[in-house]
């Protein structure tokens, strides 16, 4: 979305300062090219028109941070852990044991590289987004849906590899379903599977995007009450400031939580695909 400035629905420069500021905020949080006012109209899949956006710029930085963090961590790996090696190990151990193995049992360790990649990608993007002026690479549907689709493709591929294409499709219909219900059950399962990447994408995107809108709104309250000081400002300013602090802390929590949810759902989907024929 490329929101015009000021925000849609408010014509021209007649907007009041609050509406204008919020319009500016949503505009800044929309996907924008690094250079220029808005993304070129037309086919965004056209490689010739490729440009980094305000989100993918920070996303690439987050990916580099993950890479550097783990390469350093791997180099420092020693029997008696310390420093960054210790931190990297703690992360690896958490994802491997508390996500992969807890959900899938011992065979879950096999899928750790995939789920670990997702977890640390999402985590680092979410966390980096909390450091102004960075935006979370996960705060745009382009990222979250792409990763949702990657998860969708991977877990279905695993299910097909494990059960065979036919066996996997058959597993969509629970055994014991009456004949007339089978097409409906099958359709229902197809819909439920198709919705998985969508829900993965929307959940992560909405959490990160909404968090930044909230932070922005309270920052605007602070700025505007300072700028146009009135009696109301005496109440709004301290409250907004406190909310700003509280939300920052909450956003850190959400950053970790969403990374955990995205990866544990991936583990659950892979586990379901592995044991599809048992249902």
């Amino acid at each position, binding site marked *: 979305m490329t929101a015009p400035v000021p925000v849609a629905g408010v014509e021209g420069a007649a907007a009041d300062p609050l509406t204008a500021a919020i319009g500016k905020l949503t505009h800044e949080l929309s996907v924008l090219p690094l250079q220029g006012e808005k993304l070129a109209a037309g086919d965004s899949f056209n490689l010739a028109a490729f440009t980094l956006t305000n989100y993918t710029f920070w996303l690439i930085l987050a990916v580099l941070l993950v*890479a550097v963090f783990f390469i350093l961590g791997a180099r420092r790996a020693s029997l008696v852990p310390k420093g960054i090696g210790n931190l990297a190990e703690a992360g690896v151990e958490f994802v491997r044991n508390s996500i992969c193995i807890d959900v899938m049992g011992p065979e879950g360790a096999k899928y750790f590289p995939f789920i670990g990649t997702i977890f*640390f990608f999402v985590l680092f993007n979410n966390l980096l987004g909390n450091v102004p002026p960075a935006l979370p690479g996960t705060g745009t549907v382009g990222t979250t849906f792409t990763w949702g689709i990657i998860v969708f493709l991977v877990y279905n591929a695993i299910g097909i590899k494990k059960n065979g294409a036919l066996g996997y499709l058959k597993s969509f219909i629970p055994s014991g379903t009456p004949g007339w219900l089978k097409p409906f059950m099958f359709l229902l399962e197809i819909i439920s599977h198709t919705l998985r990447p969508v829900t993965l994408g929307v959940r992560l995107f909405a959490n990160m995007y909404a968090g930044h809108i909230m932070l922005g709104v309270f920052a605007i309250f602070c700025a505007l009450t300072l700028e146009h000081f009135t009696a109301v400002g005496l109440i709004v300013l301290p409250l907004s400031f406190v909310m700003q602090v509280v939300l920052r802390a909450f956003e850190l929590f959400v950053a970790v939580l969403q990374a955990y949810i995205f990866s544990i759902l991936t583990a659950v989907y892979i586990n379901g695909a592995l044991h599809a024929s048992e249902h």
Partner: protein
Amino acid sequence: MEKIIPLGVELYVNLVAFAVLFVLLWKFAFPPITKMLDQRADTIRESLEKAEQTRVDAERLLDEYKVHMAEARQEAAKVIEQGRKVAETMKDDIVAKANEEAAAVLVRAREEIQAEKRAAMAELQASVADLSVAVAGKLIGSSLSDAEHRKLVEGYVAEVGSLNGN
């Protein structure tokens, strides 16, 4: 709708980011870390097992030592008891032998005393006879020969002796 379909510019970056990050982590970064984690788990497990084994060994050794100690103590008590018995019998023997010897000494002493007494008596008898002969000779004038006198007196002394003798 525009919001739901990923923009191409973002899709490309994310696909590349996923591919690069996955290969990097999967092939290079995660293996040393997971290997180290497994190795540490093994090391800790082995250490614990070793410690447990050592504890069991130590306990077994302690038990063995306790048994040995008890045996040694019994052995020592037995040796002491035997020693006491030996000493006891030796003491009894020595005392008995001493008593025996003392008794023998006493008997011999008595015999010697008896012999001495008899010799003294015999000597006395001889002296008395000589003296008597001499006295009688002086009284009656040497009418009787020495030999006859002697015979007479000796007979008399023997009579007296047998009356007073033991």
